[in-house]
């Protein structure tokens, strides 16, 4: 092989591993902030994400979310279902792709999703079914996500911060209760309570939503459990609405309000000089400037009824913590790969030096190290249409029609920073109605 071929070959390898979706994601997130969901879908479909099989999962998740936001629920279900199937396939470790990633970078591997992303696929599917008034299938998702959470729990044996999802369990509790599966409902409310009190308090500094107290009292009394007395003592004789009172006299509006856009991973790197201008480079994904939640609380008003809700799922903080958890593992992998690549260059140089082509040795060495560093790229892929945070409000109302459902948003200093009219809603006696809103504050 002459010099030209060597160069050509190296360049080819470098470009092959360089395809980046940074710009696409930036544009889609811009569309998102201006609520141009259908434009974002067109953009996504035309991109490389739609065709590259390594990024199938990402494509399905992003498209599912955008379709959901565009109120195209049945189509959204199709894509999230594809995402689930793809995850199932990705369970098998591909030998060929693993080896390819060893000589280039992690972007050569198919995207397998973070644990919290896998959980959220079920959450969005449940919402899709709810919006289509199909509670039975929404509950199938609740059952599946419970299985998945148990699996994650088991896998990490509490080592990981994200081994439970308090909000997803809470929503399961709500849905099971509506369906009349009170045992399942109580179990999920209880798990949610535990997780808020332990993990969420410790790592994200948020505690359980105030409604959870009522839910635990209502359910435990309805089921005739001893826990009722324990909770009553713990929560200090608060008043709560019994299920029979609810069923025959009240209705409820439950609002899920998703705000902002989840932060993106960026590439961090460490360099050490080697020969000439070549250097040893280590790269890793990291989060910078994740931005704090601006919203302190939200208030939902229907006629003369109003209720205050708060942050129930700090997704951005969960994503950051999840990556931190894996930082050691990622670093070890990066180090192993860099060592293999730079080491191989040194071996090749040494072999050349001893052969009759010894005059090429210095060139190969520089090119080799250059190639090794140039191909080092951090895997910064992620599900980037997710919100920054999720808020929840439960509002008890008298049955009837409310023409102006109003959502007011307050910052941490309790100043009103926004107000949204969510349109009209009709609540029947004993009915729990779901509302969803995505905003960008």
């Amino acid at each position, binding site marked *: 092989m002459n010099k030209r071929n060597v160069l050509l070959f190296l360049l080819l390898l470098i470009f092959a591993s360089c395809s980046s979706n940074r710009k696409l994601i930036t544009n889609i997130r811009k569309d998102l902030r201006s609520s141009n969901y259908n434009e974002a879908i067109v953009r996504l479909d035309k991109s490389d994400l739609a065709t590259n099989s390594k990024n199938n999962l990402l494509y399905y998740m992003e498209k599912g979310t955008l379709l959901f936001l565009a109120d195209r629920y049945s189509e959204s279900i199709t894509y999230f279902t594809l995402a689930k199937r793809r995850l199932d396939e990705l*369970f*098998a470790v591909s030998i*060929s792709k693993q080896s390819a990633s060893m000589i280039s970078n992690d972007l050569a591997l198919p995207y397998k999703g973070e644990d919290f992303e896998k959980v959220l696929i079920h959450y969005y599917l449940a919402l899709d079914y709810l919006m289509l008034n199909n509670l039975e299938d929404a509950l199938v998702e609740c059952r599946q996500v419970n299985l998945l959470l148990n699996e994650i729990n088991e896998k990490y044996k509490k080592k990981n911060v994200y081994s439970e999802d308090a909000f997803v369990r809470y929503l399961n509790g709500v849905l099971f209760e509506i369906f009349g599966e009170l045992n399942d409902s109580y179990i999920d409310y209880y798990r949610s309570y535990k997780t808020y009190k332990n993990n969420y308090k410790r790592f994200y500094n948020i505690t359980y939503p105030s409604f959870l107290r009522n839910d635990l009292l209502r359910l435990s009394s309805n089921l005739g459990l001893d826990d009722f007395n324990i909770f009553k003592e713990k929560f200090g004789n608060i008043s709560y609405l019994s299920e029979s009172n609810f069923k025959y006299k009240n209705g409820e509006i439950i609002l899920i309000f998703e705000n902002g856009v989840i932060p993106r991973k960026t590439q961090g790197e460490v360099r050490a000089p080697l020969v000439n201008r070549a250097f040893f480079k280590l790269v890793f994904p990291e989060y910078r400037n994740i931005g704090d939640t601006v919203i302190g609380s939200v208030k939902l008003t229907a006629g003369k009824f109003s209720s205050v809700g708060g942050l129930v799922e700090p997704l951005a903080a969960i994503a950051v913590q999840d990556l931190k958890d894996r930082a050691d593992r990622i670093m070890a992998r990066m180090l192993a790969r860099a060592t293999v690549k730079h080491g191989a260059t040194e071996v090749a140089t040494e072999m050349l030096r001893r052969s009759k082509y010894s005059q090429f040795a210095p060139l190969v060495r520089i090119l080799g190290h250059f190639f090794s560093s140039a191909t080092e790229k951090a895997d910064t892929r992620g599900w980037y249409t997710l919100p920054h945070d999720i808020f929840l409000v439960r509002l008890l109302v008298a049955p009837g029609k409310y023409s102006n459902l109003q959502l007011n948003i307050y910052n941490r200093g309790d100043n009103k920073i926004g107000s949204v009219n969510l349109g009209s809603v009709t609540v029947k006696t004993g009915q729990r109605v779901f509302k969803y809103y995505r905003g960008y504050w």
Partner: protein
Amino acid sequence: MRNFKLLLLFVIPLFFVSSCAHKQIRRMDSSEIKDLSGRWNDTDSRLTAQKVIAECLESPWYNRHKSETGKNPVVIVGRIVNKSHEHINTETFINDLEKSLINSGEVDFVANNATREQVRAERRSMQDWSNPDTVKRMRNETGADYMLVGSINTIIDKEGKETVKFYQIDLKLLQLETNKIVWIGGKKIKKYIKKDSISW
């Protein structure tokens, strides 16, 4: 340069090989059993329906009804609730149940809610538009004596690449006039699924 051409000679055929993964299609008999994903499928639905209906018609309520009234019982299939971990199309299962019931010849069978509405609309329009000799009377539907309702439950045990799925299909036959449960039956299906943990 010769080496480079040699390289191309190896690389180019690779593209062809990778792009010609072809599809195979073969018609299957609908009774042939083929499990692909381990999910609830047509075979589960059909076999369950056949088995439970056969069991149902052999139980004592049937003869009691016959001896008391001298007529075939009239049955309707109500709601089958999916309480499982899978998105199961209960409609096809209901169809399978209905088919087994009708084909047994031992019960009279009335159409379910959705179908009934269609037939009623047709009958209403008959009153105005059809030849009087062929018009069917309104308010002459056969009322059902019994209603079949039920649920599909799953229990899943999973460890790494292995999964055991346990389906429990519960069915109840209710006497419409009294709410009495005259028969309870069902079927259990157990499946073992193992996923590959390594692929090429």
